[in-house]
């Protein structure tokens, strides 16, 4: 299972492709279950980069945990949450994310 992630050009904030746009949290990102879907996500990412919406586009491994998307690698977990040493900052700081988690 994979999802599409990037950083938003204007402010660098980590985003994930979800429901036709870029979400600030990973939980409901669009999942690619097979190679064809992965290729589609990659094409969306390349187009968004070319359109100057996002930078540093990547496809990352994820799993589902309690109905929400969760990255597999620690690096991507930290990107999705925020610095582990400052839980008051990043995605983890916003009430919405806490509820979602």
């Amino acid at each position: 299972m994979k999802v599409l992630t990037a950083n938003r050009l204007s402010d660098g904030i980590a985003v994930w492709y979800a429901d036709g746009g870029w979400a600030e949290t990973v939980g409901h990102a669009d999942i690619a279950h097979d190679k064809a879907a992965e290729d589609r996500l990659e094409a969306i990412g390349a187009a968004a980069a070319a359109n100057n919406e996002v930078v540093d586009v990547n496809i990352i491994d994820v799993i589902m945990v309690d109905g929400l998307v969760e990255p597999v690698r620690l690096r991507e977990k930290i990107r999705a949450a925020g610095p582990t040493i400052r839980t008051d900052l990043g995605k983890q700081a916003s009430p919405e994310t806490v509820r979602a988690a």
Partner: protein
Amino acid sequence: MYRYDEFDHDFVQARVAEFSDQVQRRLAGEITEDQFRPLRLMNGVYLQLHAYMLRIAVPYGTLNSRQLRMLGHIARKYDKGYGHFTTRQNIQFNWPALSDIPAILADLASVEMHAIQTSGNCIRNVTADHFAGAAADEVADPRPYAEILRQWSSVHPEFSFLPRKFKIAVTGAERDRAAIQTHDIGLHLKKNAAGELGFAVYVGGGQGRTPMVAKKIRDFLPEADLLSYCTAILRVYNLYGRRDNKYKARIKILVHETGVEEITRQIEAEWQELRDADLKLPEADIQAINAYFAPPALVDRPEGDDAVKQARLDSKSFSQWLDQNVVTHRYPDYAAVTISLKGIGEVPGDATDSQMEAVADIAEKYAFDELRVSHEQNLILPHVARADLKAVYDALVEIGLATANSNLISDIISCPGLDYCALATARSIPVAQEISRRFASLERQREIGELKLKISGCINACGHHHVGHIGILGVEKKGSELYQVTLGGSADENTSVGEIIGRGFSSEEITDAIEQIVDTYLGLRLNPDERFIDAYRRVGPAPFKEALYAGETKAA
């Protein structure tokens, strides 16, 4: 301290205008990321895990209170209320929006600051002894030479696209507090038998994945030849440094592969062509730059001795801080103060907006408006009258910056690691915090004595782990963080690269392992004056390996 002249002002303003335009064009989609990336890097803008990061230059670590106050303002207005002081004596902000960076740079320019050459394959911020100008043991202030090097290297057309980044450090004392032997060029300012100033020149030091101690290629270079000689070194490097492999592109690899004798010959030959040409530093120019660094007018404050004596009696915590964080000044009525940014359990090198402003106030009131950033990620007040030390201490207590741990085990250098950095393979800050908490007792830390512990979250070694008495390198192994320990590193006048002690430790094990190493040292040192590094050099790794791994061998 150095004040911009008209040229500097115009240059920085022009750069702000130029980069602001580039940012606007990028945001408008007129230039691509591939076109923009090298431009943003030349202006200190990186992309990290969570956001952009802006690295701001603090030349040779010297700041005034107005500048530090502006950094506090930027932290509050554009970032998330804090900044991170780095091992290149700079400061980084972790959360700026690209769209805000033109405004940030304009604010910085208003206090003679910028982010130029804090990234890219150019000559980076020149670092210097953080006690420069105050140290009792220096022959002269190294900062005028660092400033001359800054002026020479800023947008130097020949050296803006080197094979790789290039770092220079200068010290003016025998006791090296600037880690010059870990730099591409290390300069030791000294006097010859005739009393003239010049430099011992070291080349080819560095850390990263291939740590090397710099080699001395000249014992005495007259000060007038500083730029011609550095130019000769850079020319040889620019010509022969490897561009085929990023990991072999630093000058340390060139020095290693060419051999010290041959590279010295090449540099000296190049220098013969240059030495008597227009790069010779005129005495008048040296004097003019020196004048900018004239020490503050330190008036006699003989009441300091009694004041300190009395304050020591009144407060044990002040007394401990005095012993640990205050060092001798060349002027006996004064002292240099280390403001620890390593509070127990805190993030090494981080300071909040209000702490920056409060420290700026203290510097203005008690320290002749002068501050330094140390490469060990602390702040320094280089000139404080001993009579004012108690007042400074009390003010630092109020803002939580009076931890008396300078040079002790909790005075840890740590890179941002995987909590922020896009290159990191493991977290380093949480490891630093846990070790700091484990050794929280100041009595215990003082009993252990001087111990330099340094942590990097990847092989690039921004946390200087190779030269820690105890070094920790975080790597990713099978999806988990694993921490390798090196012992016996050092970044002073006896620089050495630490040796890997054995298999790595998980994040759950690493603090116990460090404690075991420290306990082993305490058990074998000859006396309390034998520092960890001295004891390690005497006994070698065997007793530490035994303590860490003997059980495993037996079990196997």
